[in-house]
């Protein structure tokens, strides 16, 4: 009986396995294959060597993603705290409001943000109506980072909010009892106890930020080449597939390293992130 059940259980996983092999494992192998071959299909390291000319793109991408992640943390942490401390009914409402944008396609969200920030957009109309000079926003690095923050903020707030909700409120009372004012309670107790949520949030914002191409294209007005854009461009023409594959491979390794680092931190907290 038990054996039969476990066979069924295994069978239940087959559709996903097929899916994963066809659309995840196989493409990954292709990426690796293309990265180490030339147009004739023979082994070469020249694609990888070529990557050194893209190093500034990697640098800019990492910088943008780090700034966006940091801003998300700065905005998201207090927000998560406020939500977790409010009444249960308010909590539900606020989390729905927070998740609402996630139900809309990322492309549409980014596009609507662009129309807001455009030279003739809502923000500038408002500024001119109030008698201020219009500000050029689209095409600046600030707009790209704002787009990343706007698109990925929920991914920061939700894991932090979850870890705050799990936290026993008695720890806060114990801290107050031992002489902490609310500021000290925050830094000595709440922050360390929600560290797994913070790490998880950082990973979940940093990874999509570093690989995005749409945000930088629309809000950056083509002035900023991030890794995502560069990779996308390489795959437009068959002749540059091999460089694109090498770029993808390096980015994947970067992401894996950052996830591994985060997991290592959170292992010490006794909890896995991803």
């Amino acid at each position, binding site marked *: 009986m038990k054996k039969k059940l476990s066979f069924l259980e295994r069978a239940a996983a087959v559709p996903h396995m097929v899916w994963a092999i066809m659309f995840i494992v196989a493409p990954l192998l292709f990426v690796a294959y293309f990265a180490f071959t030339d147009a004739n299909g023979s082994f070469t390291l020249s694609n990888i060597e070529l990557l050194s000319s893209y190093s500034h793109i990697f640098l800019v991408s990492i910088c943008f993603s780090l700034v966006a992640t940091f801003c998300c943390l700065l905005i998201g942490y207090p927000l998560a705290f406020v939500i977790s401390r409010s009444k249960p009914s308010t909590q539900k409402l606020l989390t729905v409001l927070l998740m609402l944008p996630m139900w809309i396609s990322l492309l549409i969200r980014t596009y609507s943000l662009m129309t807001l920030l455009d030279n003739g957009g809502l923000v500038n109309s408002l500024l001119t109506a109030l008698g201020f000079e219009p500000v050029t926003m689209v095409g600046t690095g600030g707009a790209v980072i704002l787009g990343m923050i706007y698109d990925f903020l929920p991914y920061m707030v939700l894991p932090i909010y979850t870890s705050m909700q799990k936290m026993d409120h008695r720890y806060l*009372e114990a801290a107050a009892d031992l002489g902490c004012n609310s500021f000290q309670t925050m830094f000595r107790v709440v922050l360390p106890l929600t560290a797994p949520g913070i790490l998880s949030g950082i990973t979940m914002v940093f990874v999509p930020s570093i690989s995005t191409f749409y945000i930088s294209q629309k809000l950056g007005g083509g002035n900023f080449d991030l890794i995502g854009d560069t990779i996308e461009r390489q795959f437009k023409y068959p002749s540059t597939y091999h460089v694109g594959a090498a770029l993808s491979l390096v980015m994947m390794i970067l992401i894996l390293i950052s996830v591994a680092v985060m997991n290592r931190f959170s292992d010490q907290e006794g909890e896995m992130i991803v």
Partner: protein
Amino acid sequence: MNNTLIKLRSIEKSFDGEQVLCGIDLDIHDKEFVTLLGPSGCGKTTTLRIIGGFETPDVGDVYFDGERINDLPPHKRQVNTVFQKYALFPHLNVYDNVAFGLRVQKVKEDEIQERVREMLTMTGLKGFESRRPATLSGGQQQRVAIARALINRPRVLLLDEPLGALDLKLRKDMQNELKRIQHATGITFIYVTHDQEEALSMSDTVVVMANGRIQQIGTPTDIYNEPVNAFVADFIGESNILDGVMLCDNKARFAAHTFDCVDGGFAKNEAVDVVIRPEDVDVVPVEKGMLSGTVSGVTFKGDYYEIIVDVCGFKWMIETSDYVAPEQKIGLYIEPDAIHIMKKSEYSGKFGDYSTFSEEMDHLSDPDTEASENEEETLLS
């Protein structure tokens, strides 16, 4: 007694429209071991939380050393708490948990080291410095919680059912330990429990609470020997509580018999509750007894037998060292000073008759209901 340290004056508190405390007046003296005793939901934990600063009373005042502290936040009070489930910080090891309060006060690190070591020695936790709370047993966590609170040298230590999660043997040990620590430090302890034995054996003063009111305040002996009403008599130990009439001073009539007693000060023929403890009734041959009845149940308790005796329909509980057989007719003899007379109260007639004994015991001793009710209580608060 020493001077009054904490004064509660006509405290009232309700949660979601439900009155939890009504008119609490309480004086707590310096260096005293005070126990708030009562069943779940009686308001004892809320009273403690008001003293700790975690709740603000709706009505009434809290004074600490003569100063009104209603609006003083917990971190500014000279009070520390041992929480019900300890609330040890899971991200800190034992040393850092104990050092927490001192670090907040920015005490120098070498003094912290000195004081933590001293505290860990006193609570028997030497060698556990680098362990995380989750790896400790219940009793050890308990000690860490006490050390973490006491290291701040508070004027008052609040303990919220601190032994509730420990097994019987460990409880007994920790009771002695707490008593010893209280003597050694000279700190006022305010202790919340629903365990009457714990309250009697540890306290200088016991405050019996029920339904959000204080029923009686007194020394353990007072509370046991001179309960003020049927609730206290029943909650503290076992008691037979009968309807009676006070004929005149030192003469009470109950169970169709007139007894000599040592109480007075009642109106002539006033209706009263009469309390007689099970161990104060002597079993004698029928012809020598003041009352006689039939044994309806016998339970062996080790050093004594607990018997239920039916006297004209009222079931008495009696503790005797001599075996009597079920269905045997026996006489009962009661000394005058074993009879305690109480004024009638709202609790009259609700307690002290052992005809429903088994049900009552089931209800009282069911640990699950106790635990879940406690849970609710803390959730509410």
